[in-house]
């Protein structure tokens, strides 16, 4: 949807003069000391895919806010290209647009949500929401109907006649979101939209955004300084430091395999339970830590070395046939089903006659809750039901403690 190629932004009287210095590999602080120019973003490239949430995470001064403003050219990039891929019109060069083309792009293709909401205080909630439609000269009555529908979508249908000052921060940002959604632009630029909100409201807004995104199918570029937020919301994450993108990947890739010390330090603080998946921590079956016990009418029985009392029977199509403990067959249930059954019961003594199976993309949090129900190893399967491996206590613990923070470690 959007391709960002080598975007650089230098602030100062003569930005172009600094570009050769950057190419020579001079650092940000050297350039600032020598020329007085501030490098906001240096050589940033990434691709934002349709219907994806792409999160850019960085601390203040990392250039993330400058980066997002380069995408719709609220800040003019010094060098680099930005392309907007359009199913109808092909790729359009955003960086080469004239003032009118740029306005049309901001009206039709991209809208924006701001950290401090930036709602117009002199306009009612509804009139804020339809601002984007109003400046396009759309019919007033129709715009107001669209605006009202959008407000209802964010849960503020009854507040249309109020003024922003009468709303709480969370509600104001819902209005900000509604204003951005009302133009039906396919791309949503969100500059730290939830940073100014209380923690509880923030989590609620994150969930609602994910739901809205899956309902409406928008493509979102999301800026945040909070790694957990980036991991929760982002399908892809780019980490920025000192104006450069230091790593791009899925939340799990970044958590498990941080590329630099900087990323590793961040990742250390992150909550892995919602990010690490079963596939990542599973002990592969069959694998070096298993041996084959016997074969019986097309079913191969494997046992883990040192744990020979449990036998895993796998048929020719890699599917789980049965699990035997000391020769006795035990019940096998999908993790999701058990979690649903026991969602409301506060505590269950882990059963030792039940084996759970989970999908390879089940996250650590779900696995831990499953562990409360069953004391036996969990079976990890792929989408076709084929067995990939097992997860026992040791894998769960190492998933929490070890599968992160190691620079350059293999996933």
């Amino acid at each position, binding site marked *: 949807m959007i391709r960002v190629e080598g975007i650089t932004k230098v602030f100062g009287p003569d930005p172009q003069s600094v570009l050769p210095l950057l190419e020579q590999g001079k650092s940000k602080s050297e350039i600032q000391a020598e020329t007085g120019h501030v490098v906001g973003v240096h050589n940033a490239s990434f691709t934002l895919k349709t219907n994806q949430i792409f999160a850019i995470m960085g601390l203040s001064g990392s250039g993330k806010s400058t980066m997002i403003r380069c995408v719709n050219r609220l800040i003019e990039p010094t060098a680099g290209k930005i392309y907007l891929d359009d199913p109808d019109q092909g790729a359009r060069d955003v960086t080469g647009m004239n003032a009118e083309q740029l306005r049309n*792009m901001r*009206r039709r293709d991209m809208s*924006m949500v*701001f950290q*401090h909401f930036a709602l117009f205080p*002199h306009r009612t909630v509804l009139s804020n929401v339809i601002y984007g439609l109003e400046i396009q000269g759309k019919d007033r009555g129709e715009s107001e109907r669209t605006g009202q529908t959008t407000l209802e979508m964010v849960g503020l249908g009854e507040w249309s006649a109020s003024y*922003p000052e009468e709303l709480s921060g969370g509600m104001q940002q819902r209005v900000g979101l509604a204003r951005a959604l009302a133009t039906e632009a396919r791309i949503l630029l969100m500059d730290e939209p939830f940073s100014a909100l209380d923690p509880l409201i923030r989590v609620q807004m994150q969930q609602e955004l994910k739901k809205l995104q899956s309902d409406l199918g928008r493509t979102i570029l999301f800026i945040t300084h909070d790694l957990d937020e980036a991991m929760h919301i982002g399908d892809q994450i780019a980490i920025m430091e000192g104006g450069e993108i230091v790593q791009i990947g899925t939340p799990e890739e970044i958590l498990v395999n941080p590329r630099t010390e900087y990323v590793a330090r961040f990742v250390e603080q992150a909550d892995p339970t919602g990010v690490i998946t079963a596939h990542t921590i599973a002990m592969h079956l069959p694998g070096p830590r298993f041996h084959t016990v016997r074969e019986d009418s097309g079913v191969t029985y494997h046992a883990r070395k040192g744990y020979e009392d449990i036998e895993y029977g796998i048929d020719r199509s890699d599917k789980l046939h049965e699990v035997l403990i000391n020769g006795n067959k035990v019940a096998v249930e999908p993790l999701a089903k058990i979690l649903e059954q026991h969602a409301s019961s506060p505590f269950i003594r882990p059963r030792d006659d039940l084996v759970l199976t989970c999908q390879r993309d089940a996250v650590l949090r779900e696995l831990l809750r499953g562990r409360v129900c069953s004391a036996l190893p969990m079976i990890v399967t792929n989408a076709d039901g084929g067995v990939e491996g097992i997860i026992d206590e040791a894998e769960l613990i190492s998933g929490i403690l070890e599968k992160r923070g190691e620079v350059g470690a293999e996933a």
Partner: protein
Amino acid sequence: MVDDISGLFPFLVLNPFDLIDLPARDWANDLVNWSVAIFRDAFRAYVSPPVRAVMEAFQWVLSTIPPLLFLVLIFVAGWLAASWKVGLFALITFLLLGFMGIWDQLIVTLSLVATAVVFSILLGLPLGIVCSRSDRFAAIMRPILDIMQTTPPFVYLVPAVMLFGIGNVPGLIATIIFSMPPIIRLTNLGIRQVGAQYIEAARAFGSTPGQILWKVQFPLALPTIMAGLNQTIMLSLSMVVIAAIIGAGGLGLEVYAGLERLNIGQAFVGGLGIVLLAMVLDRITQGLGEKAPGARKTRSD
């Protein structure tokens, strides 16, 4: 001369003013004479008629309304613009002035002020907007505005008389020039003070510069602009009184005539009328500024 220079020298150092004679008086005279010769006919042909027409229209409307209806209207105006208290204050004030027998003068002064304010807005608002959008223009305007504001009000009267003659119109011209700076300054200031985040949001949704001005900057600057309007009204009221010297009518004339004839009572009543009228207009315009939607703030400010 040459042999006297030794005696002249210390004197020269201590008092150099006799050496050079800067004929500023002559220059000023020349300038006024020159501009009178060039502009007088044009000004009288093109500047006077619209000012006079607006003034006469106000005067006709305000004096045609029966006083009782006028009192009702002023009450409603105060109520709508500010509060019922301001409305009541205006009502009582106008009632008192009527009982004191200066109703007609009040109406004349009110129409003079209204005319001056209309022209101040008509000229000052666009100038203020241009100032806010061009640093260069603002830099040029600043000394001009300083001169307009610091020149003693009496000084305006002489060229006004020479260019426009005697009567209400030259008084009004002087008043307009004297009272215009606040609205220019505060329009400029108000627009420049609008938070960058609102302008950024407006840009992000694809607004044209004109849309940003009229849909975001101007409404948000309105409380400040109203403060400028308030000052403009106050200044025009004070100038309209001074303009009585060159033949403007109304309450100012009452004061001026009273002083000339040493009729202190007449001057007092005229002065009281001016003060009370100023208070009423001040309360009403302040109320307008506070009620402007742009006076609302968001919590994140």
